[in-house]
């Protein structure tokens, strides 16, 4: 019984997953803020999206409801579409200025 209890204490609970998702999201967000390479920023976005996906799934498991997992599929589809558009934009940026720095692209400033 006592051994079982110890095993139960070491069990990976939902909190662990949520914490991991928060860490991943923060890494992605900080990457967005700090890095100026468009490609890296793009990867950061993907990281954030997947962090959110992780949150969805763990919450879905925790509450025993299916809706969270359904949402993950939506997010995956949107992410796939976003990758297509985003990569195309990045390629055209490369063609224009031969660097992927987004700071040069400030023509929309007020």
């Amino acid at each position, binding site marked *: 019984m006592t051994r079982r209890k110890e095993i139960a204490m070491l069990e990976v609970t939902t909190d662990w997953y949520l914490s991991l998702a928060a860490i991943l999201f923060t890494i992605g*967000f900080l990457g*967005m803020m700090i890095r100026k390479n468009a490609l890296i920023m793009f990867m950061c976005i993907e990281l954030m999206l997947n962090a959110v996906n992780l949150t969805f799934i763990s919450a879905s498991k925790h509450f025993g409801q299916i809706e969270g997992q359904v949402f993950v599929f939506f997010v995956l589809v949107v992410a796939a579409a976003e990758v297509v558009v985003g990569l195309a934009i990045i390629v055209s940026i490369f063609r224009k200025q031969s660097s992927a720095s*987004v*700071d040069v692209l*400030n023509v929309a*400033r*007020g």
Partner: protein
Amino acid sequence: MWQEVSLDFIFLLSIFLPFLTAIFLFLNKKLFNELMTNFFTLNAALLSFAIAAYSFVVLALNKFNGVNIELFQWISNPDISIGFTLDGLSGIMLILVTGLSFVIQLFSTSYMEKDENYSNYFIYFNFFVFSMLLLVMSSNFLVMFFGWELVGLSSYLLISFWSKKPAAAKAGNKAFVINRVGDFGFLIGLMIILDNFNTFDFYKILNNSNEVSENTITLISLFLLLGAFGKSAQFPLFSWLPDAMEGPTPASALIHAATMVTAGVFMLVRISPLLQHSNLASLLITVFGLITALLAAFSAINQYDIKKVLAYSTISQLGFMFIAIGAGAYVAAIFHLVTHAFFKALLFLGAGAVIHSMHHEQDIRKMGGLRKQMPITASMMGVGTLAISGIPPLAGFWSKDEILASVFANGGIYYIFWALTLGAAFLTAFYMGRHWLLIFEKDNGFEHSDINEAPKAMTRPLLLLGIFSIFIGFINTPFFHGLEKVLHVNLENVEVTHLPEGITLVVLAVLSIGAGFTGLIIAFLFFGIELHKRIDLQKFKLEYPINLIKDLSFNVLYLNKFGNLFFVSGMKNLTRKVAVVVDGMLIDGSVNFVSTAFNKTSKITSTTQTGMVRNYVVYFGLFLLLLIVLFIATPMVQS
């Protein structure tokens, strides 16, 4: 049955014929020479008159029970339709307008000869006749208002016909602007009518006049009265008419003497069933008519322009008509309108003939002694002068005497009004006598041997109008009430002032004849045998008062100058201030403030838009943080 049907539609022809003529002449302006223009316009006018006369005869056979034609209904609620009516009142005007239109156009063919805008003149003229018929033949206020505005327009066109003359252009503007003041009142009156009666139809309104309170009727009457004052050149809106004499003389004869300026009188008689319920309106009409009659007659005694004397005389005679309406003598008002139309048209055409022969000289001080050169014109002008002075048995005597007797019959304060009206009648005889003597008799030391009698196209209309001016008075005498029979349907429910009976009437008639004769005799003493030069004025100390009267009369009591100073200059200063303060500072200021405010705030807020994607990410993160904090801080709501 056949007669009724034919009557229904045929009189519409005489209304629209002048309009079609105007369009026809306009379309063929380049093609027609003067002869062709004459041919079409004169025949159309004659045909129009013939149809009018026929309609009038059928109407008379129908015992003056009018017909109403509704062409179509425009709006069902409120009940607004386009319609025309032929009854005693509009029948008289129909005959008068079409008849005079023909005679005066005949005169015009000679007067306007070789004018560079010859066909334009007849286009405007026909258009005026159409507008005037629209005004008088309408069965509701709306069509009347259309006509009312259109006569204003065509009057403007004809006054400033010689628009190369600055004075003519100015006079046209003045007439138009002053008429706007009156039309403003007329329009408000119409709005109140629509509000209270829910229709514009004369018969529906006039038959239901008992349903509305007296205050409302007074209000309606006063606003309509303002319109009548403007159109009929009554005090204080009269100063446009003397200036309107810049137009061609035959046009003045038709528009500014015989027809258009009587529109106000016509309209007031039309609404007489309404007017009789308002004592205040009636009193005001009498008082203003009296002021106008006296003021204009006084102003006429020292004018030197041959047409301006007649213009002031017209204003004064219109004042007589207003006095008659105020005194409840609606038949007398229409009677005087008819007789005045004839003898004033005669006087204007005579003046036109003189101006034509004098090579467009209008100053009567440069005329004098023209009787020998222009015998027909002189005698016909003489007939007109006697008629307007009220010498029996000419036309003016019967109508003016009827007005005087009706005013007297009202009693009370009207005795004073009667005396003053008699004074105006005396002044009328005086200035008209002076007018005739200065033109045709007195030797002013100018050589006139090269002056010839006017051509036949001018003298024939003069003769025709002269005959009418003598005999037209017999349509309504104390012995034969012809006009009353014509108007009996119109005035069915109206309390008409009755003339005094027997000896009173005779005494009043003698007094009015006396006023006319005295005026003529005094005019003869001054301007015929020049009494004032034979006696020593210094001895009687009369020089100063006579000069004062001359000065005041010539300047119309300085009312025009006062009006210019007070209204024109005052209004100019006011508008200038409004332009600077209200427009410049208030309106422009607020608009500019809004635009600069947007400009500045957008400049400030747009600095946040750096264009740097990473900055936006920071904003995004900050707001996300804020949302989370809010989410945590908000207490859970129990559902």
